[in-house]
C-alpha cells in the first residue's frame, strides 16, 4: 500500500488529512508561542529557565 493510500485509508479523504495536519501544526505553533514567546509576566516567570535554556529571546 502506498503512503498516500494509507493516509487516505486512515483519514477518509485527503481534505480531512490536510485539515488534521493544519490543525496539529497550528496547535504546535500556538503552544510554542505561549510557552516560549508570550510576554505575560506569569508565563514569563514560570517558563523563565526553559526560555533561556532553549534559546528563545527572553527579556
Amino acid at each position: 500500500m502506498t503512503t498516500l493510500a494509507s493516509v487516505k485509508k486512515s483519514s477518509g479523504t485527503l481534505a480531512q488529512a490536510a485539515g488534521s495536519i493544519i490543525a496539529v501544526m497550528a496547535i504546535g505553533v500556538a503552544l510554542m508561542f505561549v510557552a516560549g514567546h508570550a510576554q505575560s509576566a506569569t508565563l514569563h516567570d514560570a517558563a523563565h529557565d526553559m526560555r533561556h535554556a532553549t534559546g528563545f529571546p527572553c527579556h
Partner: protein
Amino acid sequence: MFQRLVTGAVFAGCAAGLIAALLHFSFVQALILTGEQYESGALTHFAGGGDHAVHADAGEASGEDAGHDHATHKHGESGGLARDGLTVLFTVLIYVAYGFILIAGFGAASTFGARIGAVQGLLWGIGGFAVFQLAPAMGLAPELPGTVAADLGARQVWWWGTALLTAAGLLGLGYGRKAWVFVLAGVALALPHVIGAPTLGEYYGSAPPELGAAFAARVLGVGLVAWAVLGWVAGSVWARGERV
C-alpha cells in the same frame, strides 16, 4: 488521522522533554543561577577572581549592568522546588509543541508520498534543531541571565523569520527536485544571517564571557540531543502507525 498525529506528538514530545529536562539540570541550570548572581550584582566580574565565596552586597552593586531594567522581570527562588518543577513542566511543554510541528510535517510529507521511519525522523529532528535552535542562535546566541540585548519585539520577529526561512530552506534541500529549488533554499537559509539579527552594537553584559560561552554551547548540545530523541521517537511511532 488527527488522533494519530496528536498521540504521536504528545508521546515523542514527553519523551524528548523529560530527557531535555534531565540534561538541563545536569549541564545548564547551574550556569543560569550563576549568571543571575552576576545579573543581580551578588557576584561581580573580576571582583572575585571566580571565587563564588566573595559576595558583594546586592544593593551596592546593582548598577553594574547598565540599561537592564530589573523591574520588568523577576526570577523564581534559586533552586526552589516550584521553580525547578515549572522548568520541567515547560521543557516538556515546549518539546510537545515541537512534536506537534514535527508530526504535522510528517503528515504533510507522507501525503506527498515521502516515507517516514526512525531514520527520516532522526534527520527531521536534527533539522528541527537547526530550525528552532541552531540557526536563530547564530544571530541571537542563547542568553545567559546578565546579558543585555536589543528590543525584545525586534528579536522575536527576527527569530520567527529565521526559523521559518530555515525550515523552508531545509525542506527545499531535502525534498526539492529541481535546481532552482536548491538555489531558493540556499537563499532562504542565508537570508536571515545576511540581514542580521537586531543587536545593540555595544556590550553591556555583567557576566563573564566564559560563562556565556559555556552556557550557549551547552544549550545547543542539550538541544541537539533532545531534538534527535524527539525526531527518532516520532519517526518510529509514525512508522508503526503506517504498518497498522
